[in-house]
Structure formats: C-alpha cells, structure tokens
C-alpha cells in the first residue's frame, strides 16, 4: 500500500510541477509564441475562449499521453528526427477523428458549438509543439500529462490576457498606423517580457 501511495504521490507531484512550469515559466505563447495565430483567431470569438481552452487542454493532455507511449518505440529507429513529425501528425489525426466521434454523441446545441472548435484545436502549433517538446525530453507519464495540461491551460490563460486588450485596439490614443494588429503584437511582446521577468530571468547584455 505504501508503495502504491508513493507511486501516486510521485505521479501527482510530477504532474503538478510540470503543469506549473508550463503555465508560468514556459508558457506556450509568451515563451515560445506557439499558437499565437490560433489565439488571434480565438480572441475574435471572446465567448468561446473557455470552451476552446477546455477542448485544447483535453487534446494536449491526450497528446502528452500519446507521446509517452510512442516515443520509446520511435527513438529506436535510425534518423527518427525526420519521420517523427509524420508519426505525430498521424497520431493527432486519430485523436481528431476520435474527438469528432465523441462530439457526435453530444446534445445538438453543444455539438454545434464544439465541432468547429475541434478542427482549430487539433491542428495547430500548440498540440504538435506539445508532442514534439515532450518527445525531446525523457519524461515520466505524470510529467507528460502535466506538460499537456500546463500547455493547454497556459495557452488559455495567455489568450485571456491578450483578449483583455481586445476592446482597446482601436483607441484614439493609439497612433493610427499602430491600431489593431500592430499594437496587439507589441502588447503581447510586453506581456512576454513581463512573464520573462516574473519567473526571475534577467535581460542579457
């Protein structure tokens, strides 16, 4: 029983630690800019942010588990770096189809909301990036799940921060040439700098 408790404790500890790292230190958007294009599309549909974030988080967690299972097999092959992306894209395609099948059982109202989001949330840089980043590290199952969880929640949090600026993008206080997309990018850059400093980094000189 003690061994079982230790194993579960270690699993949860790895999962929680990696989630926090991905949420704050290695945030998908602010540290790696992964999924920036997706975030820009999503913030135009502000109401769907939470729903999209939830779907994306489920897919990134599944992606983490898939990588944990597939990577030991893939890395045995010679020149695995060339065909690893193809295998992972195939894995995402399977997850995507499964998600569509599961979505088919939802009530009609929920299905009409969720289905268009599955397409955006499956094939984007956040999900493939999660797979490839987890593959690059030797992670335990707990860490892999935590990585996926933190990546999804971190993306949602970052998208929320970006969406806060949404209604101010056309403020008359902003020079005309900067209104809209340019000022939004500069805002994301400043948030990225803030996150960089928040976790204790110092700017190199």
């Amino acid at each position: 029983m003690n061994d079982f408790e230790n194993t579960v404790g270690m699993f949860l500890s790895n999962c929680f630690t990696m989630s926090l790292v991905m949420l704050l230190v290695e945030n998908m958007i602010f540290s790696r800019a992964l999924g920036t294009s997706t975030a820009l599309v999503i913030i135009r549909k502000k109401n769907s942010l939470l729903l999209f974030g939830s779907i994306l988080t489920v897919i990134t967690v599944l992606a983490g588990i898939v990588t944990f299972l597939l990577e030991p097999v893939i890395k045995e092959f010679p020149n695995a770096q060339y065909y690893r992306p193809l295998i992972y894209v195939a894995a995402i395609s399977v997850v995507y189809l499964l998600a569509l099948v599961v979505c088919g059982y939802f009530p009609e109202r929920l299905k009409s909301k969720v289905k268009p989001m599955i397409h955006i949330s499956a094939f984007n840089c956040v999900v493939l990036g999660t797979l490839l980043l987890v593959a690059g590290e030797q992670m335990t199952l707990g860490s892999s799940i935590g990585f996926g969880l933190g990546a999804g929640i971190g993306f949602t949090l970052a998208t929320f921060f970006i969406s806060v600026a949404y209604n101010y993008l056309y403020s008359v206080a902003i020079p005309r040439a900067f209104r809209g997309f340019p000022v939004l990018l500069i805002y994301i850059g400043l948030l990225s700098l803030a996150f960089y400093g928040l976790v204790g980094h110092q700017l190199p000189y």
Partner: protein
Amino acid sequence: MNNRFYREHKSVFDTIDGFLLKNTVLEKGLVVAPVVVVSSSLKNGVALALAFSVLTFFTVFVTSFIPKNIPHSLRVIIAVLFAGALYIPTAMLIDLWFPGTSYQLGVFLPLMITNSLIVWRSESRFHKETKPRMALDLFFHILGFWAVICVVGAVREVWGNGTLWGNQLAFVENPIMGVLLPFSGFIIVGFLAALLHKYRNYLIPMDKDDILDLSDGTQPFGYQTVPAPAIKPKKTQASLQKGVAADE
C-alpha cells in the same frame, strides 16, 4: 509606388496582394511563431522560409486535387499527412544546405507542417481559385513570408549579435542580446506591421464613414481592418444624462 499608380493598377495589385497588402504575417497574423522566436539570424530565417515554401506550396497545390465531396475533416487530415511526408525530404535538404541549422530551429521546423496557410487558408482562399491563379497567389504569399522573416532575422542578428550571415560587422559595437528573445520578436514584427499599415493607409485613404462599432463586441481586428477605422465613442450613462440635461 504612389496611391495614384496603385488605383490605376488595382486589379494587378489585388492579384499579388499576398506579398504586401495581405501579407501572411504582418496583415493576417498567421505563421507568427517562427518569425518571432527562431528568426534570430538571417540564416535561420532563410532556412525556415525555405522549409515553409516547399511544404506550403506543394501541400496546398497537391491537396487542391482532392475531390470536394470528401468530408472537410478528411481533406484536412490528408493535407497534414501529405505535409508530414513532404517534411522528410525537406528536412534532409535543410540539413544538407544549412548544416546545424535544424538543431537551432528545434521544433519550429517540423511545426511548419501544421502552418496556418496549409490548415486554414488553403480551404478558405487558395482552393477556391483556378489552378494557375492559386499557384501565383501562393507564390506571392510565400514571397511575402520570405520578405518578413529575412528582414526580422537580419535586424535581430545585426542588433542582437553584431553579425550578418555570421560575419562580424564593424559598425555594431554594443549588440543588445535581449533583441534575440521572443518578446523582441513580437515588438519588431509589431513595428513592421505598423509600417505596413502606414503604407496601406497611404495607398487606400480611409473612408471617413468607416466607423467601428464596438457595442456588439464582435468587431474584426487586425486582419481585416486596415485602414484602421476610428472608434465610435460609446454612450455612457453619464453622457446620456448630460444630453438629457442639455435638452431640457
């Protein structure tokens, strides 16, 4: 190019708008991540642009032959699987021409497989065009990406490292390493986008009636809004009361 010349040849410029006025990165906000993070040198930029060109052009072109009666979900899966297969020779080519660069590019090289032009724009734009028109449009979109990533890569390499294509530049005495970090990438791309907006606003003067209504909260941003419309001020409770008082 001045605005008169642009107006006279608008149909020609609409054909090649993917290069500048509807630029993939600066106007559409697509494929931002590699430009922001790994284009820290001109060589990285060129390697990424090469991978982007090969993967995007051939994937979008070949998948345009997939019959439309196949469900959309399956068409997307076929497209990304094709891009994944095409990635294998592309990555080998990058390794051959730019030894060591693929290591620096990390996950951003394979991430080109699911780039937004392949996943989103191919169905919404390119596959609706005739084949020759699509090839031309794709070419100019790719050329626009090349221009942005090379400019950003060169600026960051000179400013952050004091080198260009690995060659030391004598006039850069104190490079600022912070320019090589992702936040600088966002800010530099933001300034380039503003420069493009400025030029576009010059070419297409803003219609004064083009007022953006923020009341429903569903206004477009960035991608579709240049020239930037002015904000219609919201009527607050205080201003309404003031208006009533003035009427009285």
